């Protein structure tokens, strides 16, 4: 199993002053699977993700990407490995249209300084089609006019556009209604089916069991359990989140 992990963290720790946010956490995710990262508020999910995204550096521990030991000290390092993060609220600029948002920061330029709108529009349309995001009226629509689900889909599409190999989604369904949650979860599934590694952070265990292949539970800065979603139940995960153990699963009881 270990050899096929795309991202593997070994014994990572991070402290903020006296607060030990992460203690010797092991975490891994393979290409083509959705790994859910769950835990209570303050369990260390965000810290773990920000370490991988290069926003913080871990104090201790090792990061392996594609089998090779790597250092991630900045968001640029993460991006160059093919790691993209979709942040909860901060992903899009409302006044820009879909194309402009998807290419924000990586615009294609035709010499001397002109934006290459045609080529960006084509690439944007192709990416959205490949992800089966088909509910948009126009890719020239301002993002402000889109539904929550569509916005989230654009944010995800923006992340996968750059030949990314690992996409981290921070609470992608938190603000969505039932139908829109459905759309986004379908999209998350398709990412994994396309061979990307996906890390899904969510408080909603129903969503987690909908799409996740495996689940890692963090509690008080420690990874208490990693389990196949098909081998467990919501009750057991709730128990692990709150008490730190997984009951009644043979061979997994601490």
């Amino acid at each position: 199993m270990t050899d096929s992990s795309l991202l593997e963290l070994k014994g990572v720790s991070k402290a903020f002053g006296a607060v030990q946010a992460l203690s010797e956490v092991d975490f891994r995710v393979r290409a083509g699977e959705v790994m859910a990262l769950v835990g209570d508020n303050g369990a260390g999910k965000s810290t773990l993700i920000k370490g991988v995204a290069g926003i913080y550096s871990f104090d201790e521990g090792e990061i392996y990407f594609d089998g090779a030991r790597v250092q991630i000290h900045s968001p640029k390092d993460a991006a160059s490995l093919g790691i993209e993060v979709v942040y909860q609220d901060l992903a899009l600029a409302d006044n820009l249209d879909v194309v402009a948002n998807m290419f924000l920061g990586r615009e294609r330029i035709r010499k001397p300084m002109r934006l290459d709108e045609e080529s960006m529009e084509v690439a944007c349309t192709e990416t959205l089609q490949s992800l089966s995001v088909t509910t948009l009226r126009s890719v020239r629509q301002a993002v402000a006019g889109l539904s929550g689900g569509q916005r989230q889909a654009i944010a995800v599409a923006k992340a996968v556009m750059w030949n990314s190999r690992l996409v981290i989604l921070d609470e992608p369904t938190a603000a969505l209604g039932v139908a829109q949650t459905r759309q986004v979860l379908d999209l998350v599934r398709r990412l994994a089916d396309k061979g990307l590694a996906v890390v899904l952070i969510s408080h909603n265990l129903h969503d987690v069991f909908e799409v996740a292949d495996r689940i890692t539970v963090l509690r008080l800065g420690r990874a208490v359990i990693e389990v196949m979603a098909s081998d467990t139940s919501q009750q057991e995960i709730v128990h692990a989140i709150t008490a730190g153990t997984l009951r009644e699963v043979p061979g997994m009881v601490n």
Partner: protein
Amino acid sequence: METILKSKNSLFRSDATQKLMAFAGLIALFVVFSIASPNFFQFSNIIGILLATAVNGILALGATFVIITAGIDLSVGTVMTLSAVMTGVFITVMGLPVYVGVLGGLTTGALAGFINGSIISRMKIPPFVATLGMLYIAKGLSLVISGLKPVYFNDTPSFKEIAMGSILGKIIPGFEVPNAVLILFGAAFIAHLILNKTVLGRYTYAIGSNEEATRLSGVNVTFWKTAIYALAGSFAGLGGVMIAARLNSAQPALGAGYELDAIAAVVIGGTSLSGGEGTILGTIIGAFIISVLTNGLRILSVPQEWQIVVTGTIVILAVYADILRRRQ
């Protein structure tokens, strides 16, 4: 593929209604004043309106960029004056060629804008405060450098021609449109291209729309903000050259209040002070609305004090119309 053909400009579709309203307002003013006075719709008076718009319009172009980033530039008026004075110093005092003086004026404006942008993006001082400081600095420097006296360009008659000559009049006899008007439209066209076709324009909207998302997308917001303020400063520098050429002198005491006229033009043109929205065309229409009003009321012998009251009312009404539109 249909979407590709459909809508090149729909990025700005939300502004279309506002622009339409502003444009309709401008036409309405023309019609009303034309009916009210036979002197209004005369070639010479229209040229007068265009000429009166030139300096404010150019300042407003730069202000448009800054306001779309959700910033503000209070220093454009006094930076304009400083640029005019520097142009005077280069040409009259130092005896440099006219084109060097013009470049010097533009550079002065760009430099002031660069300093504004650096203070705002690196020292994290709010734009209002940073550019208020620059307002005073530029004003003080203009007085110091000029020694409180106007600088005249009497020895270089070609300088005046930059604004008051008429290349068009030479090509088409009788069609004496001053160069200042051509420069205004040329500058507006360039500003429009920068805002809509380049990365700088794209980031102007992005920063005003969601600065944090822009940063997280990997855009060097510090660099681009500085560039945007430097661009606004360059337009103020151009405004300085234009006003000096028009008056055939650099008046160090002039300039206060020009920033407010520029901001008024931008706001009337539908650019939102909360950022992310706005167009160059809107700003030009806004600038013309102000000068048509001023001109028309003067022709109707309304006292100048009342013209200012009317301008203020129009600013408020324009923004209120924008708010009503958004509610729908």
